[in-house]
Structures are given as structure tokens and as C-alpha cells.
């Protein structure tokens, strides 16, 4: 009898745990959803690159975090140190993608806005 009660208890706990896990799992895809909704366009990126100062660009692949932070500050990005950390975290970036699509996709998860993403990319080269 005790065994049966224990068995029933374990079954109930298992069902509850699975139900809770089901709720948690639904959040895992939100990041990519946000990425898709705020994905920047190529034309605006080109415009931002055109307005950036030549020579101020640093390599997103090889520059140090502090160098990237300085370059971002120079183009007027707020929280430059924090964004530099993100740039370093998502390395490496394809050398044949001057538009930095990979970086744009990853930054979009933070919902920084088109202008901020364009400013960040304008200070960087792959």
C-alpha cells in the first residue's frame, strides 16, 4: 500500500516537473525572434559606413577589447565598453562580409536600435 502511494507520488511529481519544463522551454527561441524582428538592412549600414571617419576603423576579429571600445566611443556609441565586450564575444567574423551581418544579428538580440548598430558597425572592419 505504501509502495503504491509512493509510486503515485513519483508519477505526480514527474508530470508537474515536465509541465514546468514545458513552460521554460518556450523562452529559448525568443532570442532569435528578437534578432529577426530588429535585423538591420544593408542600405542603412552602407549609409552609416559612408558617414564614419576613415581611418578610425578597427578590426573586430583582431583588435583588443579596449581598442574596440575606443573606436566605438569615437563614433559616439554609448556604453562603448559593454558593446566592445559583445563584439569580442561573438568572434570570429567572416572576412568576406564587410557589412558584418553576423555581428548585426548578435547585437540585435539586445534590441539596441538601428542607429546604434549602424554606429558600431561603422567603427569596425571584419
Amino acid at each position: 500500500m505504501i509502495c503504491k502511494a509512493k509510486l503515485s507520488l513519483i508519477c505526480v511529481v514527474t508530470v508537474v516537473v515536465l509541465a514546468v519544463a514545458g513552460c521554460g522551454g518556450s523562452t529559448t527561441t525568443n532570442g532569435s525572434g528578437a534578432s529577426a524582428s530588429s535585423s538591420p538592412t544593408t542600405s542603412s549600414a552602407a549609409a552609416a559606413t559612408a558617414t564614419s571617419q576613415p581611418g578610425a576603423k578597427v578590426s573586430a576579429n583582431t583588435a583588443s577589447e579596449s581598442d574596440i571600445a575606443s573606436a566605438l566611443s569615437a563614433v559616439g556609441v554609448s556604453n562603448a565598453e559593454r558593446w566592445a565586450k559583445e563584439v569580442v564575444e561573438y568572434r570570429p567574423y567572416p572576412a568576406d562580409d564587410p557589412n558584418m551581418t553576423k555581428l548585426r544579428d548578435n547585437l540585435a538580440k539586445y534590441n539596441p536600435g538601428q542607429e546604434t548598430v549602424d554606429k558600431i558597425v561603422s567603427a569596425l572592419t571584419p
Partner: protein
Amino acid sequence: MTEIRNQRGLASAALVRRGLYALTVIGILATAFELATVRHWLDIEQLIPWVALVVLAIATVLALASFRQGRIAAGLLALLVLGASVYGVIDHTVVNYNSGPLDQRFADTWESLSPANRWWYAFTKTVGPAPTLAPGILGETAVLLLLACLMPTPTAAGNQPSA
């Protein structure tokens, strides 16, 4: 009559136990797949769930062993993974909290919000990139294994179920 009931109980217990083991293995594989798809290895801290998965796999093997000490060790390792899962939920919430000023909607107002508001936005992923409850899958899998370890087995005292 009592013996027949005991045998039925043991059969049911064995079925549930196998089901819990199967769900544990599925949980480990599914979590590994999910972590791989989001490239969850970009810094040291992101390796924690991978280590937890290895620990959980070892615990599962130990739990499947017939000796009692193995099941006890498996239970303890499952508790360890449960702790890692709780840490993951907290860590994801903190990451989102720290991302608040980067969000264009809150960049100018984040500091003026009440702490309760800021933490709520972080926990509900209103700000930040980290799925706060996703590490809970590790905890869920650990609990499944823990329950499997607590199931009665027919090994001790003949056909009588034990702990």
C-alpha cells in the same frame, strides 16, 4: 493475494523507473542539442551546462548500476546538477539585467526604474538576450533522475520493494 499485489507493484515500479531513465537520457541529449544550436561555448561560464550534462550522464550510468552506493552517488550528482540549474537561471537573469541599458527602449530610463521593475523585466526577458528559464531543463532532468533513484527496486529482500 498480497504476493500478487506486490508483484504488480514491482512491475509498475520497474516500468515507471525505466520511463524516468528514458526521459533523463532524452533530456540530456535534447539539452546538448539545444546548447550546440545556440553555440553555448563562447566563454568559460557558458561551459557550465556542458559540464553539468557530463555529470548528469555519469550519474545516469551510476543509477543504472545495480548496487546501492551507485544509486546514492547518482542522487548526489543529480542534486549537484540541480544546483547548477538554479545558478543558470540566476545567471541568465543577471545577464538580462545588465543588458537593460543597451536596450533602446530603456537606454535613457533604466536607472530611473525601480529595482523590482528592472529585475522583473530581466527575469521575464523583456530586456536582454538570455532565456531565463532555459537552464531549468537541466534541473528537470536532474529531478527525473533523482526520482528514478528513489524508486523501489526488487534487488533487496527478495521480491520486496526497497527504498
